[in-house]
């Protein structure tokens, strides 16, 4: 399972961001994870409490949204929905397509409380 490793990388990103933004605590973390990213959202959610324990993000909610798998055909130009193991053009069937969305592995936003300056 590599989700714990991914989560640990996420925590390092969060720590840097918290420093830069002078956050006192992180209350929510939003990710965008596509089905073709190779990361399983549920496993990541399971790993999160372990990776975040004792950190500035302990107790934060982790929200994961997924983008649909979409491809654009390089032959006929059509855009269509696709699935994990069928990424060919939905219109003409050609296999020369470009993935438009569905492989994201992104930290999209973070909700935080700032340190109060007296």
């Amino acid at each position: 399972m590599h989700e714990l490793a991914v989560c640990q990388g996420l925590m390092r990103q969060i720590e840097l961001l918290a420093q830069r933004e002078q956050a006192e605590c992180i209350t929510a973390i939003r990710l965008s994870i596509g089905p073709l990213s190779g990361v399983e959202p549920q496993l990541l959610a399971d790993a999160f409490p372990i990776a975040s324990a004792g950190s500035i993000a302990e107790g934060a909610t982790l929200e994961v949204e997924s983008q649909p798998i979409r491809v654009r055909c390089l032959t006929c130009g059509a855009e269509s929905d696709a699935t994990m193991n069928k990424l060919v053009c939905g219109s003409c069937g050609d296999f020369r397509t470009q993935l438009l969305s569905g492989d994201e592995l992104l930290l999209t936003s973070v909700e935080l409380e700032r340190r109060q300056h007296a």
Partner: protein
Amino acid sequence: MCDTCGCNITDGNRYLLEGDGKLARTESGREAVQVLEGLLSENDHVAAHNREHFDRHGVLAINLMSSPGSGKTRLLEETITALGDELRIAVVEGDLETENDAQRIRDKGVNAVQITTGTACHLDAHMVHGALHAVDLDDVDILFIENVGNLVCPASFDLGQHRNVTLLSVTEGDDKPAKYPVIFRAADLVLISKADLLPVLDDFSPSKAEGHLRQLASAAPLIALSAKSGVGLDDWLAWLREAREAVAAKVADGATVRPAIQPEGQQLHAHPHHHAHTHD
């Protein structure tokens, strides 16, 4: 370093960028900070750094991935035997526990660095960077990185390689690309290994395997080969020579080569990273 370079942003998710500014108040009065950073940005930066090392030394780096036991080490042994006089080879071996594979390579007279990953089921760019310090890249033409035998995790971590090669042995079934789309989609070349067993495994059809691969919108070539009988080995060696020339030509142009399906964001991300070098 590059918190705003937009790693991983594609046409499909670009709309996420369009919001009402970087900071917004949520209902609870907290601040929402938009980030849009690749989740593996730390790994990806070290990978870019590894790739710079390879390019500077004129080394072709190949990431070999497959299920456990598909024949990666055996193929490397035969490749060293066939190419040893022509090209200088080094190997980074990822293994959960043992040093066996590295020893098999060393027995062929080639430098092999073992990365024992313990519980980690994949290599990452940091591990490879660490291993590179035990390799004199000036003495190497091709560096093979034998990833941990696993069809799931290795595909998620860029190591800085130029090319991905995924092995599919004929004992595994020709529908593996449909079952593990992420790793097969990442392949620049698919090797159907243990092809000497095809006559006894009449339920494995190389053309069906190719069909499943094309369904993933992959244009990667397939080569059926056997490290045991030597069938198909020449095609593999020709592919290697060609990959070496392609990388050398790109580098001569001041660019680099990366595996075919790396996301648009990672290509945007190909800006030079001039970190201080204390180690070479």
